[in-house]
């Protein structure tokens, strides 16, 4: 059972990474939001798999949380924030090839440094698969970070933040069952943050250098 779960977890995790690359390469906001939705659902799937393989109800509840809070509500609030009149709401000057390459360099350096220095020196054991599976959440985290850093649109930055949170959830999923009360509060926090951000989005949708805020 556990080995099947491991085999399933790997392809799903890699699709999670691919969804992150997909989001990184989008100019338009709506496909990014959809990408986030798919990513969250994939993480929910991982949660269910881990739950069944470990016979732990916590993971199942967590999966349901992810589907409702990440999948449904966060997507709903983000979609609501997209200006309805501008169907083609997008960010200019997105050089996909450049972004993908820089993203890769960033990930490879960051993850490999962390993985080869930190994870090789400590004894850490993941629930399913082998320890190598922890590379996926780490990579996802740095992809989220890079998404925030590389974009000027408020939306893209929120989505990058949600992606980081997804990475945390995935990291915790692979490692151990976190107390459900804490996970639930974390989800509520992220949801509240998205709501707050969508208020800011309405006021200001892109971010450039501001003279007064330098130095």
């Amino acid at each position: 059972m556990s080995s099947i779960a491991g085999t399933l977890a790997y392809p799903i995790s890699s699709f999670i990474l691919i969804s992150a690359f997909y989001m990184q390469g989008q100019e338009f906001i709506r496909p990014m939001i959809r990408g986030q939705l798919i990513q969250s659902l994939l993480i929910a799937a991982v949660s269910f798999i881990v739950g069944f393989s470990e016979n732990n109800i916590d993971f199942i509840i967590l999966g349901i949380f992810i589907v409702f809070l990440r999948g449904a509500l966060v997507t709903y609030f983000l979609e609501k924030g997209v200006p309805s009149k501008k169907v083609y709401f997008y960010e200019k000057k997105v050089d996909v090839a450049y972004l993908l390459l820089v993203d890769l360099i960033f990930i490879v350096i960051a993850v490999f440094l962390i993985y080869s220095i930190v994870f090789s020196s400590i004894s850490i054991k993941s629930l399913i698969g082998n320890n190598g599976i922890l590379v996926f959440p780490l990579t996802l985290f740095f992809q989220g970070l890079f998404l925030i850093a590389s974009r000027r649109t408020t939306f893209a930055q929120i989505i990058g933040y949600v992606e980081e949170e997804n990475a945390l959830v995935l990291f915790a999923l692979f490692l151990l069952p976190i107390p459900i009360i804490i996970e639930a509060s974390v989800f509520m926090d992220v949801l509240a943050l998205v709501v707050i951000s969508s208020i800011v989005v309405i006021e200001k949708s892109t971010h450039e250098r501001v003279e007064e805020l330098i130095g």
Partner: protein
Amino acid sequence: MSPGLFLVILTLFVPVVAFLFYFAGLKAANIAGGVINTSIAVLLYFFRPPVGLFFVDFTTWVFIMMVTAISLLSSFYATRYFKGSKMGIKEETFYLLMALFTTSMLFSLVINNYGLMWVGIEATTISSALLLITDKTETSLEATWRYLVIVSAGVTFAFFSIILIYYSLGTLEVSSVLAITAGTKSTPILKIAVAIALIGFGTKVGVFPVHTWLPDAHSEAPSPVSAMFSGVLLPTALYVLYRIFEIDPLRSLYVWFGVISVVAASIFLGYQTRYKRMFAYSTMENMNLALIGFASGGIAGITGALLLLISHSFGKAGAFYSSGNVLKATGKKGIEDINGLWNSMPMTSGSMLLSSLAVTGTPPFGTFFGEFLILYNLLTLHYYIQFVIVLFFLMTAFISVNLNVSKMIFRGESDYSEPDRVMPLISMVSSVMPIVIGIIFLVMTIEMV
């Protein structure tokens, strides 16, 4: 139910209940709630809750005291500050968020669980973000956004450290984690967790490479909110960081990060042209000094850090209230645009001078004794290089801040007038507090000796 437990639960609910009364039409309810909460905090010194759901020791008590007192001052100040000015959010929303902000800070302080502490810190970000856009200018929106994105991204990173702590110890209760780790040898995983927390929670404390949101948020927020940020929000994050640091003291790492941040803050202080931004960098400097104090440990270090934090929170609140007065009266943000406050706004200029002396650690303010103890502690630990660096940059910071403030006060003449009678009074009270704290400390020390 023990009285301590009751008091802690009460202190968490008082701000929200006070807001409900305010919403029902009782305008003074906010201030009354602040007064009640501060008295509860004082009572907490005598009645501690049993360790269980909450974990309150002397260190926590000092922080609770700070939060309640500064919240009281800020909500009092806000009633005057917003009078007659156009607000970006509704006044009720502002007070609701202030109440939630206070509650979430108190929650992060008292809760006996690292995971929920993290949740509390994240909740402070959420509740305080919209307070920044009270003015609703283009720059304040940008600052709000930077604050949201940078801080939440950083604090997210800190959750890795929570996961690792839970992974290696199997519990997140602060009291039991500290009990487990007190005697045992540290493991590499815990070391990594503590190091990650420095960057993660350090984002909110204002540790050097991840401090960038700090000056923007402080300078664009309305003054009562700036005072809350500087006086209590950052210390709250520092408290959480300190609790994680206690698990496995990585002393050298933390001290060095603190030293580098003090250096960076002092250098940034040197070329600021806006007074609120200048005070923001001064906050960064003080926070990192307190971080050094906590990290160097020992009675001297921790006492010094607590003394520094509590006097600084009053002093810096005073500085931001004075800045608020000046901004309200002149409408100008630049240091060079403001001359001769001395003859037109005597009360405000007095409080501003006092508070700027307080936050730069002049004797007999409490901050001086705090800094003295921290530096002394560095020497006893044989951290000579760090000692010299910090001492030098503290002096440069002292010169930069006080030079700029005295320029604003004593250079030339002006014809402004005090915006209000109460506002300068509040800023004066807040600025005098560090002296009171310093004197109390001196008296207590002499008696003990």
